[in-house]
């Protein structure tokens, strides 16, 4: 899926047009282009429907493919290269897609090249020319209509009532390269095509809009996606409310009890620790998932020069920060009165927000590095769990739950230690 699933069909085309056609067009002209493209692709009936995906119901597979093609065509490219545009489609939808591509190329709008597997006879005959490959060697190149004659001439006659494409696939799959060479099926003196990794020709594709424009469009898309993804919103805030209500019940009133009693003090500290851990995980999880989930879309859009990394990253950041702040506000709204903390609500909430923001940054890094959600989810504990066993984090709870006589006896010395050792030492020296 290379188009955001919760964008409307029209919005996906508009986004591409606005960021890839430059600043020469007015919004009205872009809108006219989008409407024209929708009409050309036959998408009028679903123009205002979600593109959809695995989890979000949207347009059909064929319509989605047409939308993806439209997202590229709206920039008026001279050449379009498509990788298996009919994969996953039924035979009729596949036919309609290839028919559309043929009409585009015959209208002189652009040259269309694509890889295709298992085309039906009807689909295959729509192509003008075909290049057939066997282990990197070209076994046939020329008009599709002359392919049958070529196979017949080389000793591989096409059986009656057989799909020409299927026959060609059987021949090149079953025959060895030597055999094909003997029968004159391989292009003479042709070296096998190399299989080097597909590195972009230009790692910094030309972009037609400035960073600020890209940022505004990306922010708008992010806002729309969040508003529409109600499941994720409910999940994020629902889980926050549920977990913190649970903490509130378990540690009810712990903040307002007599802290000189060890167990009360332990509860007070424990409640604070649980809330901090909850902030860390609650904020990291959505960010961690967001990057790998949108990775294919980002790679396509980045490769095609739609936007650069910085506006993309900032759009995520500027949207994530208010969400984290809101999450922290909701979290403390739940626990503050139940546990009856003593400190100021806003100070506690902002401290929690600081933990959440730093943890989300770690998650953003992890999400940027890994390729898929599964790997990211598996790696998250590796980054966050060690923080739970960091030095000093648990020490006071053990001390607090033991007894208080040692604390009382060390009252004088402890008040000294409320400043850092270096400062204390400095003060002592001055006093002396």
């Amino acid at each position: 899926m290379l188009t955001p699933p919760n964008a409307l069909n029209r919005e996906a085309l508009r986004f591409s047009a606005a960021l890839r056609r430059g600043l020469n067009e007015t919004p009205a002209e872009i809108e006219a282009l989008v409407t024209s493209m929708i009409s050309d692709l036959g998408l009028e009936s679903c123009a205002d429907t979600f593109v959809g995906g695995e989890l979000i119901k949207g347009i059909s597979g064929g319509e989605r493919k047409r939308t993806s093609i439209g997202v590229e065509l709206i920039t008026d490219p001279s050449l379009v290269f498509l990788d298996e545009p009919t994969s996953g489609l039924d035979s009729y939808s596949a036919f309609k897609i290839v028919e559309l591509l043929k009409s585009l190329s015959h209208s002189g709008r652009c040259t269309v090249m694509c890889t295709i597997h298992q085309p039906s006879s009807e689909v295959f005959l729509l192509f003008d020319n075909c290049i057939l490959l066997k282990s990197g060697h070209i076994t046939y190149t020329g008009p599709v209509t002359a392919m049958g004659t070529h196979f017949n001439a080389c000793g591989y006659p096409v059986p009656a009532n057989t799909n020409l494409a299927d026959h060609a696939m059987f021949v090149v799959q079953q025959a060895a390269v030597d055999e094909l060479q003997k029968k004159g099926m391989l292009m003479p003196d042709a070296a096998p095509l190399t299989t080097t990794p597909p590195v972009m020709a230009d790692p910094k594709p030309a972009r037609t809009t400035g960073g600020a424009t890209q940022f505004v469009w990306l922010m708008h898309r992010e806002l729309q996606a969040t508003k529409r993804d109600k499941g994720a919103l409910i999940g994020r805030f629902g889980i926050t409310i549920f977990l913190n209500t649970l903490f509130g019940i378990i540690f009810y009133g712990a903040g307002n009890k007599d802290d000189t009693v060890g167990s009360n003090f332990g509860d007070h500290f424990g409640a604070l620790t649980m809330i901090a851990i909850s902030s860390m995980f609650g904020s990291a999880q959505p960010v961690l998932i967001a990057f790998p989930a949108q990775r294919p879309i980002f790679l396509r859009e980045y490769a095609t020069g739609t936007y650069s990394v910085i506006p993309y990253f900032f759009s995520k950041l500027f949207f994530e920060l208010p969400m984290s702040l809101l999450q922290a506000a909701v979290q403390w709204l739940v626990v503050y009165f139940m546990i009856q903390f003593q400190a100021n609500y806003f100070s506690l909430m902002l401290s929690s927000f600081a933990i959440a923001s730093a943890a989300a940054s770690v998650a953003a890094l992890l999400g940027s590095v890994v390729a898929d959600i599964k790997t990211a989810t598996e790696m998250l504990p590796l980054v966050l769990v060690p923080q739970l066993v960091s030095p000093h984090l648990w020490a006071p709870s053990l001390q607090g739950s033991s007894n208080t006589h040692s604390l009382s006896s060390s009252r004088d010395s402890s008040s000294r230690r409320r400043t850092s050792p270096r400062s204390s030492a400095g003060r002592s020296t001055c006093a002396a």
Partner: protein
Amino acid sequence: MCSLKYGMNLLLIVEFSGDACKKGGAATVAQCDALLDANGVYLDQTWVYIAVLFSLFVGFRVWGAYMLMTKAKTVF
């Protein structure tokens, strides 16, 4: 790396120092002081904790953006 530790330091300072802790009297103040001490939390380093958290926030974001840029050089 440990944002939780520095964040906890801030939370402890907010909840277990100053007026919030004085409500329970001298014994509670001593308890709070001992807690901060056991945690290695120092009031005069509050801004250090904030700065560390901010650095972690900025540092990991910049690193993430760089990694994303590096990864985006290939389409697969």
